[in-house]
């Protein structure tokens, strides 16, 4: 039998009192009330640390990088005390077959009791061989690890939506996790990358309360993804007032006006940036003067330039947005009407109206 987190603490000579203090600190850091403290304590007293297998597909590793930026809880405490990160090819000591054998061990020993965390996604083109690990396509590994997992987390926009490698024309057929693992829920934690504390909060919530967080219609935890950047943006009063940055580094930029006209995608982006902020609350994209790219949204790469407010309609080619299409057609229709009117006038002027109505409709 594995030791529980509590056993470990006791053996370290930590008293029951300081253990409870730790639990209430944890509750506070997660924004939970005092009522949650006994629950956390219970969870930690009774369970061995949950194994986490963290696997990587096509991605850029910014999600791992983000994760280790977590300030509360500290990444080191997550890794040493809260869970057991038994596999993560970016950080683990073992390599080669010593690394791969860990996957088999955990799948066997903790069948149905480990969390699978997926960063990146599987390409399905070329039989999956755009992402080869251990000589095999990543998609095989994903399927095998998913089969016995208790929960599956899709880290970042890559795993959740496909992200940059899935941007048009998606040369590798990069495919989000939920389209490959279809028989069970996938908890999507999108963002490019997601905020560190959002990542650690999602996973510690699952360990603490022993359940998946409540998800919205698209599979994202409601606790961080149910409101838009725009809903909680501190520049929102300027948006409502009609005060915008008109050009980079202009008067409005220096005063902190709304970035809507510079292409800000805050009004269509569900994420926690404008509230939780980044890197221990230091800032977030808008606070540092650049519009939101919409990096936690589905296909945010393919909506046209990040600097255009009016998004592109991919169905009409790369360069077309509603206004360019609209004005083109409206101009065409206008010209057509004018021409038609002119012809009509000529026809009428000639007054050739002698012929009768053609017979029809009997």
């Amino acid at each position, binding site marked *: 039998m594995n030791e529980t987190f509590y056993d470990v603490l006791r053996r370290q000579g930590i008293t029951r009192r300081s253990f409870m203090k730790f639990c209430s600190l944890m509750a506070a850091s997660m924004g939970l009330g005092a009522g949650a403290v006994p629950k956390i304590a219970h969870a930690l007293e009774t369970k061995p640390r949950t194994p986490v297998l963290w696997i990587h597909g096509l991605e850029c590793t910014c999600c791992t990088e983000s994760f280790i*930026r977590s*300030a509360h809880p500290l990444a080191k405490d997550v890794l040493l005390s809260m869970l057991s990160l038994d596999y993560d090819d970016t950080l683990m*000591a073992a390599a080669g077959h010593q690394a791969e054998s860990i996957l088999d061990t955990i799948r066997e020993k903790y069948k149905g009791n480990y969390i699978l965390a997926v960063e990146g996604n599987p390409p399905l083109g070329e039989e999956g061989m755009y992402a080869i690990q251990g000589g095999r396509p990543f998609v095989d590994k994903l399927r095998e690890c998913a089969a016995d997992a208790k929960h599956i987390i899709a880290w970042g926009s890559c795993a959740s939506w496909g992200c940059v490698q899935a941007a048009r024309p998606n040369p590798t057929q990069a495919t989000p996790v939920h389209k490959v693992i279809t028989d069970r829920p996938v908890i999507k934690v999108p963002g490019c990358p997601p905020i560190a504390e959002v990542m650690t909060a999602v996973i510690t919530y699952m360990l603490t309360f022993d359940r998946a967080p409540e998800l919205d219609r698209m599979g994202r935890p409601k606790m961080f993804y149910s409101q838009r950047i725009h809903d909680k943006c501190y520049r929102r009063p300027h948006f409502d007032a009609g005060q915008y940055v008109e050009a980079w580094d202009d008067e409005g930029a220096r005063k902190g006006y709304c970035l809507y006209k510079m292409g800000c995608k805050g009004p269509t982006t569900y994420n926690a940036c404008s509230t939780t902020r980044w890197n221990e609350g230091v800032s977030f994209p808008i606070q540092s003067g650049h519009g939101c790219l919409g990096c936690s949204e589905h296909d945010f790469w393919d909506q046209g330039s*990040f600097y255009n407010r009016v998004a592109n309609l991919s169905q009409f080619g790369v360069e077309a947005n509603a206004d360019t299409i609209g004005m083109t057609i409206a101009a065409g229709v206008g010209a057509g009407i004018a021409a038609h009117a002119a012809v009509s006038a000529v026809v009428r002027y000639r007054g050739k109206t002698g012929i009768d109505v053609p017979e029809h409709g009997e």
Partner: protein
Amino acid sequence: MTRHETQGFTLDDTGRRIVVDPVTRIEGYMRVEVNVDENNVIRNAVSTGTLWRGLEVILKGRDPRDAWAFTQRICGVCTGTHALASVRAVENALGITIPDNANIIRNLMQLCLQVHDHLVHFYHLHALDWVDVVSALDADPRTTSELAQSLSDWPLSSPGYFRDIQNRLKAFVASGQLGLFTNGYWGNPAYRLPADANLMAVAHYLEALDFQKEIVKIHTVFGGKNPHPNWLVGGVPCAINLDGVGAVGAVNMERLNLVKSIIERTIEFVDKVYIPDLTAIAGFYRDWQYGGGISSQCLLAYGDIPVRANDYGPDSLLMPHGAIINGDLSTVHDVDLSDPEQIQEFVSHSWYTYPDETRGLHPWDGLTEPDFQLGPNTKGTRTKIEQIDENAKYSWIKSPRWRGHPMEVGPLARFVIGHVRGNPEFKEPVDRLLRTLDLPLEAIFSTLGRTAARGLEASWAAHKMAWFFDRLISNLKAGDTATANTERWDPATWPDDVKGYGFTEAPRGALGHWIHIRDRKIENYQAVVPTTWNGSPRDPQGQIGPFEAALMNTPLAKADEPLEILRTLHSFDPCLACSSH
């Protein structure tokens, strides 16, 4: 083919084949296969990049002003560096100049990345090649404390502090759940550190994990987040407002103080923890002089960190630039990224296709057309490869060459070039370190030399941040707060058909982006990335790349534990997502 001579190495694939896949503690996917002789000495080395995403294909037809965001997602580890190369390429193509403050802020961000990336690499990706975590359990915290205090005056060095860490580690190990340390090569005879030093290193592994998240806050101030801060063609997106209406939301005194304090703490951490640890560890591995590869023959750097905005010429760049070939350290060649004869990429051994694969293509004419096929001597099947055939195409990485030569890039290349150019900022720290370790200059051409150069560079970069911060303040004092030039922001002001390139010194080495803009859209975009250079497969001449060369002739203590292989590969800090993009 069983024996083959190239670049002074004899490749011999007759011995036992050892496969390491995945190579871990790197970014992305890499597979390595080596043949060892009867003494377990590596006689043939094959390194393969095993993933491809197609960013160069995806960039076609896009708005050049957006390219930085796409290319930034080439990598979240060297986050920002591709964005910088990209905005520079677009500015170069369109003739856009940036304000002095924007140049300073970009330098601060790039230097910040250098320190951060090097620190995380040393402690979290590389240290376990030198440090036996389990052995730290046997340490006496008092001797560890004495060791730590003899190295620097870093305050976290009391016996009690190390005892706490050791207790935590004991509890962790006793839980039976070793997490990231599961199946490590603990107890392997190639580990040389005494238990006390191992305990100190473990303590610093954890401290560095805590501290690295502080350094990147410089990105957060100027770019809004890290990883993946925001950049801008024509400058930087953050406006400066020191004392006017709304200053509270712009770069103001409070933000500047935050940056300043991070710079100070970073310098302290690097100089009091990183460099002393590096020196101490190196001291125990003085005679482990393997892994030099081609570092004594062919080295390349583009240079970076322009002192003057918009001046990317040699006099303005603080980081060394130039090329050394054929081991001739007396001549440093100038590098011209626009010269079609100098930089070319080959694909004869890469999973791409060219009309004529005996020839290389300059990036402006570059092609990226995937072509996955395995050679006839492959063992296994197409989707279950047991052994790769290195005589055919065998990697998703292209083979860049400078005037036909494979080149090593990275901190070691920069320091050697800086050293032979006589630049004291790069010469003196190397000489000092070698003196401390009592090693000759040639010792730097090794795995350890690469690792040492990286540490020295982190220190250099940390101090340079302080220097640029002061420059920023004096600009502000003089009343200059401009951060962006928007004259050519509107695509309507652009020419119809232009080409440009942008470069930087990324943490892992020389990085170049080449762009061709036609009708305001990206016509072609090519990136040649540090790990493309270092991890390149063979070329039509059969020349091997730096990774493969560095593994050659290294003895393994235990053939089935790839500790030495990891050690040497990690000294390059491979980034595979970067390499193939």
